[in-house]
Each structure stands twice: as structure tokens, then as C-alpha cells.
């Protein structure tokens, strides 16, 4: 079966030669959750804008639900639901009115319109708040209504641009349940952008890591993590040991690779982290370096990001904000 979402070589430049996308390609199979992971400003929202026909690419092509986003935008619009980063709800209207207006612009009328709105309100637990204006809703309720509005006309493909940003932990877990249910029980194809690593890890069947307008890695979360050999070992050091001392110590432990020595920390990888730790500690002690703490962890998407984008995820995120 054809992919529900497919993009090849998308390029988007904005005024002033800002290259927001620099050749993004991706493909999502029907009924799956595809994650687009990256720090702020990586190009996730721009990709979503092009795939939802809001913005036109300068180069490249894309199709959604089998329709070309540039040549058949009207057909794409009928097939998709989109929940943008900015909510798009009218705060002066009630929850129900927002849903009804959405249904109307998709050509829904009469009893079907009202019953679909009620169905979604009940399902998202907004039945009691349906008659209140959206301005009185909490952040979590608004986000749920956003998704309900996106689902009003029963789309085949749903775009969720950072659906959990700004939500409290409880509301975030709620949203995760909802996303899993939509892809699982209702067979929707979902493209989800996020800058939370654990969210992409937990929800996406496949994901693409984007950085500076490019896809730097793509695969299932396990595949991506699997490409990283071994466990990560992080050792926090006490005081300010000399670089030479630390390096001499490491040289005695041949199992370590990908070693990085910082002022007060040592990071390395080993095929079997648990077995390497005693040797590392012994070697450091022999050189007179005191250890504050040691952690061994399985590879995470954080490590994947570090490897492909060449910088730590948090750093990239901070960089984008400044």
C-alpha cells in the first residue's frame, strides 16, 4: 500500500534567505504514528505547514493521502485534520460552537453535525464544558478541544504539531493515551512533531530526527537506538582532576570507546557497561582521581540525537531560543 504521507526533498526559504528546510524527505505508512523530532527551529513546523497546504515549498514534492500538496490542495484539505502549535480556537465561542463551525466549513450539516460534535465532546471528556466559552478552559482542555476540532470531519491523516508543549504532566499523559488510541483503534495516520525525546520514543512507530532543516536520521526508535553500540557510562569527578590523569586512567580500560573528557566528568561507551564500571573505577583510583557518581544507561534518543546532529539536544534547543 502507498504511504499516507510522503515528502521528497522539501526546501523552504523565507525572506532574507532564511533556509527553514533544506531537503526534507520522509514517508509514513497508513495507520502509523510518525514522529518528527527536533529542537526548536529545526524545521518541524515548516514541514507540517507544507504538508497541510498552508505553505508552498520552494522545491521538492509531497503527497498526503495520495494527493499532491501543491497541485491538489483542495483534496488534501478534505483528507487531513491539522492541530497547529497555536491552538486556532476562538476563545469567545463555546467548545460546541467551535466544533460546529469547523464541521460547517467542511460541508457537514443538520443532525449529523450536532451528533458528531457531541460524540467528540463526550469522548474527550468535555461534555460538561461544552456550553462554556473556550476562554474559561484550562490548557489541557483547550488542547483536547484542538484535537477534537481536527477530528471533526473524520480525516484519514492527522497532523499534531507539538500537541503536548506547555501541558502539565497529567494532561500530557492523557494526550499520549488519546494519540495511541487514534492510531490503534481508528486506523488514523498521525504525524506528530515534538521536541520531547521520551514522547517520540513512546509514541512513534517510525521517526525522523530533524536538525537545521535536514533529516539527520530516520528509522524506528529501536533501530535508531540500536545503531549506537553499547551502553553509556557517565562518571562525575570530584574536584578538578588534571586531564592527563583521567586520560592515563582510561588508557588502562580497553573496553571503552567514544570517550569524552570534560572538566569534571567523563563520558564513554562500552559494550557491557556494568562489567566495565569496576575497571573504570579502579583505573581512576590508581591515578588518584576521586569519583562522585557513576551512571550506566541504555542508549536513549538523546544519544542518537547527539550522534547525528553533533550536539546535545538540550544545547540545540537553547541555541534556538537565543
Amino acid at each position, binding site marked *: 500500500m502507498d504511504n499516507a504521507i510522503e515528502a521528497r526533498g522539501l526546501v523552504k526559504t523565507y525572506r532574507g534567505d532564511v533556509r527553514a528546510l533544506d531537503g526534507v524527505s520522509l514517508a509514513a505508512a497508513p495507520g502509523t504514528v510518525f514522529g518528527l523530532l527536533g529542537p526548536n527551529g529545526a524545521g518541524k513546523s515548516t514541514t507540517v505547514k507544507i504538508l497541510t497546504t498552508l*505553505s508552498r515549498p520552494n522545491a521538492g514534492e509531497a503527497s498526503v493521502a495520495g494527493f499532491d500538496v501543491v497541485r491538489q490542495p483542495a483534496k488534501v*484539505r478534505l483528507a487531513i485534520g*491539522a492541530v497547529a502549535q497555536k491552538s*486556532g*480556537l*476562538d476563545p469567545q465561542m463555546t467548545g460546541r460552537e467551535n466544533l460546529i463551525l469547523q464541521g*460547517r*466549513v467542511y460541508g457537514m450539516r443538520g443532525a449529523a453535525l450536532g451528533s458528531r460534535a457531541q460524540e467528540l465532546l463526550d469522548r474527550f471528556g468535555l461534555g460538561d464544558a461544552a456550553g462554556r466559552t473556550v476562554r474559561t478552559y484550562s490548557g489541557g482542555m483547550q488542547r483536547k478541544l484542538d484535537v477534537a476540532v481536527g477530528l471533526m470531519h473524520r480525516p484519514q491523516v492527522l497532523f499534531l504539531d507539538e500537541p503536548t508543549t506547555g501541558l502539565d504532566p497529567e494532561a500530557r499523559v492523557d494526550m499520549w493515551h488519546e494519540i495511541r488510541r487514534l492510531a490503534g483503534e481508528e486506523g488514523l495516520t498521525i504525524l506528530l512533531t515534538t521536541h520531547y525525546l521520551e514522547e517520540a520514543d513512546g509514541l512513534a512507530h517510525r521517526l525522523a530526527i530533524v536538525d537545521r532543516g535536514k533529516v539527520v536520521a530516520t528509522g524506528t526508535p529501536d533501530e535508531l537506538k540500536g545503531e549506537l553500540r553499547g551502553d553509556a557510562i557517565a562518571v562525575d569527578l570530584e574536584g578538578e582532576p588534571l586531564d592527563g590523569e583521567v586520560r592515563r586512567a582510561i588508557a588502562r580500560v580497553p573496553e571503552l570507546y567514544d570517550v569524552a573528557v570534560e572538566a569534571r566528568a567523563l563520558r564513554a561507551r562500552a559494550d557491557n557497561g556494568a562489567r566495565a564500571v569496576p575497571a573504570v573505577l579502579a583505573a581512576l583510583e590508581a591515578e588518584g582521581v576521586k569519583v562522585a557518581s557513576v551512571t550506566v544507561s541504555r542508549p536513549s534518543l538523546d544519544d542518537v540525537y547527539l550522534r547525528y546532529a553533533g550536539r546535545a539536544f538540550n544545547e540545540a534547543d537553547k541555541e534556538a531560543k537565543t
Partner: protein
Amino acid sequence: MTTAVSDTWFMTQRHLRNLFRQPAWILISLVQPVVWLLLYGALFRRIVEIPGFGAGSYIDFLTPGIVVMTCLFGAGWSGMGLIDDLNRGVVDRFLVSPASRGSLIAGRLVQGALVGMIQSAIIVVLGLLVGADYPGGIGGIVALTICAVLLGTGVGALSNGIALLSRREETMIAVSNFVLLPLTFLSSVFMAQTLMPGWMQSVAKYNPVDWAVQAGREGLASGPDWALVFSRMGWLLVFTVVCTWLATRAFRVYQKSI
């Protein structure tokens, strides 16, 4: 085409409902014309005594001016709501849907026109209560309302165009403040054309606000010069069409910038 019409009506309903949910707005938009009519009416009451003013009662003279001014000011601020929609992502939400693009602006203009008609009717009745006389009758009142609404639609389109280009409330406030009051004073809303300084008379000739006031006032006069009324109405129609076209251009610029 039919979806464009129905979508426009859905958007109009949305804007009207939101307006009527704001009691403060209803109160102010009802009270403001009253204040203008009574305040300016009292302030400039004796102006008609100036030789050459050409009107017997200032309230007769002023009422059509206040109708036009009310529609002008209402329309001038029309873009504020659109800026709010742009900032909240409401416009983008509808652009991702099959909603007719034109309806996003047209809905606001239709709402403005309906509100303008209601306000005009209120002011006309109020004028009667404070002693204004409309020898031109119903025909004149209809002509006045059409002119005021045409002016409002054109200015409303410009206001929405500025909203789309600037996307900032500060810019909108600055432009509206800078333009609306001078446009009013560069017309015969308060003062007979013949008593304005020469250069102002020349400027007023090209001022759509003046076209609307002239046509409306002429329509309400006894034995109206309908040729003058219809010519001004025609110019206003052209003005409105041009402004609407400019607003659609601004919409394209916005779409390209996303």
C-alpha cells in the same frame, strides 16, 4: 461559489455572536453616537448662524454626518479582530480547511455592514427625537445608509489589509488614530463645505468620507438632487471595490509569508 456564500455567512454569524457577547461593546457602540450627536450638536449649534452656512438647523445638518462618522470609525477598527485571529492561529486553522479564502475577510465586512445598518437606524431615530427633520423621507434615509455602509465596507477592507500586512495591534492603533479623525475633519461632517478653507475644500473633493456625507445629506434634504446622490454613491462603490481588491492582495502577501 455557493460554498463561498455559505462560508461567509458562517463567519459573519461567528463575528456577530462574539460581538453580542460583549455587553461593554454593545453599550459603548450605542452610547457613542448619542454622545457625538448631543455633544457636537450642542457645541456647534450656533454655527448655522454664520452667513453662508446654508442650513437652518444644525441637528438636521449633523445627523447624517454622525451616521457616516459612526460607520467610518467602526470600520477603521475592523482589523483589530483579524489581528487577534492571526495571532491565535484561527486564520491558519481555516486556511488548512476547505473554507473559502474570501470568506475570512468577507465575513468581517458583512458583519461590519450589518452592524453599520443597525447603528445608522438608531442614529436616525435618535436624531428625530432631538428634533432633526428629514424632508427627503425614507428614500433619503436608505440612500444615507447605503453610502455609510459602502464607505464602511471600503474602509473595513483597508483596515483588514493593514492588519494582514502589519499583524501588530500597535501599528493598527497608530494608523487608525492617524487617519480617522483627520478624514472626518477634512469632510463636511461638522462644517459646511463652503465655509472650509480653500485647500480643505480641494482635499475633501477626493475624500470618500465627504462623498458619503454629501450624498446622505442631499438625500435627506427636501427635493434631493438625485444625480448628485447617485454619482457619489457610484464613486463610493468604486472605492469599496478597489479597497476590497487591495485587501485580497494583502491576503496573498500573508499567505506567501507563512
